[in-house]
């Protein structure tokens, strides 16, 4: 069986959706969890989730259970969330604050740096230093937390960090707070969720709330016909003008695209928004009157930041929305959405939570239904890979190219 699966990446038809097995086969899911999620930088959360010493954030990705900790020196650490004694899961809750990491089974006690500090009833000569928690690589990209389970993580994270910091730093993620989190079980393979995110071909038909503020042209959508071309020309003129204005005030904005040509693939661009142009809200105005970081300009559009394999993010002047996707089964995935506002913003005073989350709450539900439609189709006998639109689905193709290339590299 594995022999068949190993042949699949090599025969992928460029420009077409993947074969059904990639969306349905549990053996491919195992391969994804090993090669893609086990050997690349995976977005797992934001620094405000582990703001104080002793804060812990747990993340489960298939067979990988990870805990990210903030130690007393404010350093971030990450470990496998499993005791070195009898293998019990150490920390159950997604968020917690602890003095030490204490196993609930026999109270083996670890420091926030992973060192084993106490193990009762072990014989003389037992070497605690050989039984620390197994480390996981962790990096914060301007407040976005990534982990890598590989012994040798992809080295090009540093290049992404250097390039992206001027884009993200003005939003000062570390001094935000989580205003709301939403977990959705997507009724389809994790790649269907990612592919759906990488195009706006479906936006005009599916997303009445989101399209009040965003221009589809910003997401790889190329127009056809005179009216659409004129509209796109106006959009691109607006992009040029605003990029100049924004970069003049120190807010990096211009497109960088390494979705398909880097091991740590990513893309970014700060995109104008419609009407008031301030935020991805129903009225296109800021949802929070306290702006992020030291920003004083409300009208900064929305910075999009996409990472391979599992995240996308929207940064506005007043709030941030981050999205992380984790495989659950071959045909389901967890989509975790986190809304952040300035840490001093007060709910009901500076922002109304319903207004803050309205657009993406609605959009997520619409997208989830679309992922379900795709999931329902790809498992039927009538499915065969279909062609991507070169005009509007170029970024989906880049996701597939990156994914297939990474599988090929691992299988070589």
């Amino acid at each position, binding site marked *: 069986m594995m022999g068949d699966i190993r042949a699949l990446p090599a025969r992928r038809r460029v420009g077409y959706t993947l074969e059904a097995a990639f969306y349905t086969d549990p053996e491919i899911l195992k391969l994804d969890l090993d090669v893609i999620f086990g050997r690349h930088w995976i977005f797992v959360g934001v620094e405000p989730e582990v703001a*104080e*010493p*002793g804060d812990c954030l747990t993340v489960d990705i298939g067979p990988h259970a990870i805990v990210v900790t903030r130690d*007393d020196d404010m350093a971030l650490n990450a470990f496998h969330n499993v005791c070195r004694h009898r293998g019990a899961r150490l920390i159950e809750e997604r968020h917690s*604050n*602890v*003095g*030490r990491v*204490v196993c609930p089974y026999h*109270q083996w*006690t670890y*420091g926030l740096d992973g060192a084993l*500090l*106490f193990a*009762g009833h072990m014989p003389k000569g037992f070497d605690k230093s050989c039984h620390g928690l197994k480390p996981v690589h962790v990096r914060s990209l301007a407040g976005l937390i990534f982990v890598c389970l590989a012994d040798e993580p992809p080295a090009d994270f540093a290049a992404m960090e250097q390039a992206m910091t001027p884009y993200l730093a003005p939003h000062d993620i570390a001094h935000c707070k989580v205003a709301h989190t939403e977990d959705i079980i997507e009724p389809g393979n994790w790649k269907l969720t990612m592919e759906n995110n990488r195009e706006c071909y479906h936006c005009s038909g599916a997303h009445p709330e989101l399209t009040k503020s965003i221009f589809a042209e910003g997401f790889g959508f190329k127009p056809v016909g005179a009216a659409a071309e004129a509209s796109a020309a106006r959009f691109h003129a607006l992009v040029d003008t605003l990029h100049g204005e924004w970069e003049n005030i120190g807010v990096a904005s211009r497109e960088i695209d390494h979705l398909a040509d880097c091991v740590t693939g990513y893309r970014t661009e700060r995109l104008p928004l419609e009407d008031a142009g301030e935020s991805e809200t129903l009225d296109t105005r800021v949802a929070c009157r306290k702006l992020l970081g030291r920003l004083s300009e409300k009208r900064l559009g929305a910075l999009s930041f996409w990472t391979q394999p599992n995240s996308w993010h929207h940064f506005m002047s007043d709030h941030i929305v981050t999205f992380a996707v984790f495989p659950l089964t071959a045909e389901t995935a967890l989509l975790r959405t986190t809304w952040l506002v300035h840490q001093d913003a007060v709910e009901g005073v500076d922002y109304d939570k319903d207004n803050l989350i309205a657009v993406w709450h609605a959009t997520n539900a619409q997208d989830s239904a679309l992922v379900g439609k795709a999931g329902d189709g790809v498992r039927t006998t009538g499915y065969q890979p279909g062609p991507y639109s070169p005009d509007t689905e170029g970024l989906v193709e880049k996701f597939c190219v990156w994914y297939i290339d990474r599988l090929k590299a691992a299988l070589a």
Partner: protein
Amino acid sequence: MSNAAPLSVTFSLTGRVITCGADEFVLDAALAAGMKIPFTCREGLCGTCKCKLVSGEVDMKHQGGIRPKEIAAGKFLPCCSRPLSDLVIEK
């Protein structure tokens, strides 16, 4: 200090009242009195014996088994704490 008069420790949930020497750890006194308080390391590391101190003061010499935030919320570790006054513990 060892000659100082023992202090009283009241357990508010069970109503038990015991005595604890001024140079004795509260956990040791409670165990000697036959009370069942969960503990493991007995050196202020693991936090297993953590309790709420309703009133009174202790001299606690922990090794990181309790966070400043927890101490501020009235918690303490009886395994590494000597009484400085009569105590009331939520247990």
